[in-house]
């Protein structure tokens, strides 16, 4: 059919038609649902606070008389919030084309527009509640009329920290409130941050509440028997979460503002944003759920237990960034622990029993050879690393299975040997200390003037700085510079006093127990003093953190790190630039294996025994920790610091679940959910970057 048909232009839709279409839009519908839910929850919370969380049907209308001021404020705030949310929802239904935040900043709408009103109310209520919370901690949760202004004298450290934090938070909320009132563009990222962090904390509160529901139940009861307690534990957190989400949604509706001010863009600057968010949520949740969680003994225990996982995770992360991974680390870990223990006691490879340092060197060399085999197999055959290292996982396991006499667990204690003691001439130690002090001095000379110069120039140019975060950046720089300076000066002083101390001892050799150095118990800390017997902090934790810092430095500030990223991100392009892809990959396999060996030595130094199955299942745990820390399985992206956070998340999760007395059978379930959630957050954040 020929002939021209003019394209039919649809008739210009009328204003009501546009509104009707908007109303059908999913985004608006979810916003309305959120608002209604937040409103109803707010009213329920207010009512429950006033009636004292009575069970359903228990004379629910009797009001209490022993309120403290926080409860009154919370009730009023929640009620106001509920009404405001329902009002906004009805407004949205009547006029779907609600103006965005950018409209408000450009003076096109007034302050009574629903979204602005909700944001302002959210900030104000948060600030008031925070201030009252701090006040209540300080005065000891008194009911109204009971001399509320008397401050307590028996505050513990955590209470003081809580007061300081809530105080800072309240000031931030009020400052942002003022900026929004003045239509200041800088209020945008600030309000987003506040909404996001409030949402996180409220998720933690809900999590903690859910954990504690069980403890409020009678032995054979179900949740339905004790619904009010369940509501009391979960509803406030849920309300806070909905409130924060509503505000965050409203703030991100506006598109007219510069993208790099959005929270997502700020988060995308760090590969481990998901892990940081997860760790903060976890810590807040468990410290609410169990008063034992923030005790030093629990934290120290979690750190000491995860030294081996943490050290292995460093290597695996480096390897994953270069685009490969190694399933055989568990077997290498077991094998090198065995070689180390045997070298100390019976001797290996036809050598007689030896001292600690040669034994450790042999174990590490052995691990390096196993890593080299992995790498060479991979490069020469081109088989995917999953298959190659699955094979070596099984093959290397045979080492411990075959070598252990009759497959028994061998123990250092069974050989009735004294702990391996190394004797050092004091002059060697003095030379070492002088060397360390010189390196520190050089670092101080290079970095300190630079850091403080930066701080000074920021102070000078404070007025001209357009960034909304100029004050936070300035404070962060000052704090970092101060910590760096104090740490460097402290270390130098430590070196100097050590040298003086050694000089005073004369020339007798100084005995050092190798096990204590590698992974012994730390009896006292420099500033804090002697540790209580229940606190089990091991020197291995120090080595773990030092290794994290070293490898993070290599990755981010040295050529080798850049090559690693390039090889993992785009091997073709790396090759074209003259980087030897295979050499980098093989080196990373070796580093990964050697770190597994280091972990093996740390394990033997603490536990003193090796069984044939040592390290089974380790590989998946550390790969999961790296992935949670933001490292991509496909390579080219990630960070060592993220792996540290990933290991900490797993360790603290187990500690927390045991402390709250939850059935540890669900541990794997929770672990799985955390992996998936963390990866979802990581991907969402990373999308903002690309």
């Amino acid at each position: 059919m020929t002939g021209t048909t003019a394209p039919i232009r649809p008739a210009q839709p009328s204003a009501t038609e546009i509104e009707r279409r908007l109303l059908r839009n999913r985004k608006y519908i979810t916003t309305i649902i959120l608002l209604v839910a937040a409103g109803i929850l707010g009213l329920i919370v207010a009512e429950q606070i006033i009636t004292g969380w009575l069970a359903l049907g228990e004379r629910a209308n009797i009001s209490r008389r022993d309120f403290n001021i926080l409860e009154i404020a919370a009730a009023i705030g929640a009620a106001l919030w509920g009404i405001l949310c329902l009002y906004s929802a009805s407004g949205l239904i009547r006029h779907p084309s609600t103006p965005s935040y950018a409209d408000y900043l450009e003076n096109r709408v007034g302050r009574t527009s629903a979204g602005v009103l909700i944001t302002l109310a959210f900030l104000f209520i948060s600030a008031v509640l925070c201030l009252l919370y701090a006040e209540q901690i300080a005065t000891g949760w008194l009911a109204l009329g009971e001399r509320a202004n008397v401050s307590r004298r028996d505050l513990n450290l955590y209470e003081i920290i809580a007061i300081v934090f809530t105080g800072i938070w309240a000031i931030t909320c009020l400052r942002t409130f003022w900026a929004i009132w003045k239509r200041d563009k800088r209020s945008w990222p600030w309000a987003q941050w506040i909404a996001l962090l409030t949402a996180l904390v409220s998720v933690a509160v809900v999590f903690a509440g859910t954990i504690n529901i069980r403890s409020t139940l009678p032995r054979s009861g179900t949740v339905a028997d004790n619904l009010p307690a369940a509501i009391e534990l979960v509803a406030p957190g849920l309300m806070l979460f909905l409130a924060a989400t509503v505000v965050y949604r409203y703030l991100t509706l506006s598109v007219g503002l510069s993208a790099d001010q959005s929270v997502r863009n700020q988060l995308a600057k760090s590969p481990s944003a998901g892990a940081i968010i997860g760790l903060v949520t976890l810590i807040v949740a468990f410290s609410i759920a169990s008063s034992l969680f923030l005790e030093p003994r629990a934290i120290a225990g979690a750190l000491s237990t995860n030294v081996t996982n943490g050290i292995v995770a460093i290597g695996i992360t480096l390897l994953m960034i270069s685009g490969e991974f190694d399933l055989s680390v568990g077997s290498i870990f077991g094998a090198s622990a065995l070689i180390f223990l045997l070298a100390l006691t019976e001797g290996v490879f036809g050598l007689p029993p030896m001292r600690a340092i040669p034994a450790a060197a042999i174990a590490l060399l052995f691990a390096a050879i196993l890593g080299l085999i992995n790498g060479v197999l991979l490069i020469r055959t081109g088989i995917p690393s999953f298959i190659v290292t699955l094979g070596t996982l099984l093959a290397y396991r045979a080492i411990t299975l075959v070598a252990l006499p009759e497959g028994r667990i061998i123990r250092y204690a069974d050989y009735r040997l004294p702990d391996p003691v190394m004797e050092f001439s004091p002059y060697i130690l003095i030379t070492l200390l002088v060397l360390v002090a010189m390196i520190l001095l050089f670092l101080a000379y290079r970095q300190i003037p630079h850091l403080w110069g930066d701080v000074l120039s920021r102070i000078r140019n404070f007025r001209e700085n357009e960034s909304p975060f100029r004050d936070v950046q300035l404070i962060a720089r000052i704090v970092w510079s101060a910590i760096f300076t104090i740490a460097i000066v402290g270390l130098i002083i430590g070196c100097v006093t050590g040298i003086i101390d050694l000089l005073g001892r004369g020339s007798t050799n100084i005995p050092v127990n190798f096990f204590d150095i590698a992974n012994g118990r730390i009896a006292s800390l420099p500033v804090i003093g002697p540790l209580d017997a229940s606190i089990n902090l091991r020197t291995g934790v120090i080595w773990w953190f030092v290794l994290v810092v070293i490898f993070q430095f290599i990755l981010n500030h040295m050529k080798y790190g850049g090559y690693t990223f390039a090889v993992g991100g785009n091997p073709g392009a790396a090759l074209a630039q003259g980087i030897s892809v295979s050499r980098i990959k093989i080196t990373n396999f070796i580093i990964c294996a050697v770190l597994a060996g280091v972990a093996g030595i740390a394990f033997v130094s603490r536990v003193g025994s090796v069984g044939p199955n040592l390290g089974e299942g380790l590989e998946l745990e550390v790969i999961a920790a790296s992935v949670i820390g933001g490292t991509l399985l496909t390579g080219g992206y990630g960070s060592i610091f993220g792996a540290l956070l990933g290991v900490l998340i797993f360790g603290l999760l187990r500690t927390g679940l045991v402390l709250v007395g939850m059935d540890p059978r669900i541990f794997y379930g929770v672990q799985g959910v955390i992996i998936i959630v963390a990866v979802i957050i990581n991907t969402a954040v990373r999308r903002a970057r690309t």
Partner: protein
Amino acid sequence: MRKASRLLAIALLILGVAVIGIGVVGAQDDGLSFAIVSHGGAGNPFWITVIKGMDDACALLDANCQWLADDTYGLEAMAGFWDDALALNPDGIGTTVPDPDVIRSGVERAAELGLPVIALNTADPGAGTDAALPILFYIGANEFTGGVSNAQRVFAEAAAAGASITKGVCTVQEQGHSGLEARCAGVESVFDEMGVPVERLNITNDPAETAGILSDYFAANPDTNAIFMLGPAPSSGLNLYLTEAGIEPGTLFATSHDTSAEIYQMIQDGALLQTIDQQPYLQGFETIMWLYLNSQFEMAPGGDIFTGPGVIDSGNVDAIIDLTAAGYR
């Protein structure tokens, strides 16, 4: 280079075929032959002793015997090993039964062939019901009575010391293992009778991780003063925890199952009251002996043969240590 590697591969192939061939030829003997299928093997000290029992019995009978199992722990792999066992055309088969359904088809085929099958170490949980496997009888420890013995010892020792048990905890290192669950069930039956609360705690086979979990557990539950470990690696974790937390022997009433050098030392130190030995050597030895007696002379005992619970405590631990060194315990 490529040629060389190809040659190498071919050489390896020939070598493999030769080794397997020699093995098969060696196995084709006219004498008796027996096989035992298990869920664990040479990777675990416990099974080494069972295998020694099997080997000693076979040496006495001049029979060919095969231990068919995953080196460490493999439940699902047992189905395949049962096929291998039947392919060896033996005179009788012993098997562990951690999960009857995994090995059901193999056991039924053996019954059709008229081969005697004896369960060792872990009994058929369906025994006596319609779902029972066609198995002659069971040779092994009674896990439940082992748990009962441990719990009774703990209450007796506490009473003798003038203390009382306020709360107990039974630690499980392999989730879903029916034998371990039965040990805990035995403990719980005694605690329920005494009206004392007892709970379960999941730990791992890694001593350092177990020590961390125990440290957290005792921080949250300071009133617990009885603990039941179910194996050597868990006991190693308990020992690490006790040493690092500086807990004196005698304040915590603890027992274990199975044996290891460390468990013996803990008994000598007073950190463990007793351990339950299921006499693994007997399980391997008697299984072969009864397979021989049944296949040749149609003999059978009047019921299951219990190799445990045998109690090891400070009274007999020194004698046991010597026997362990010889591989019998």
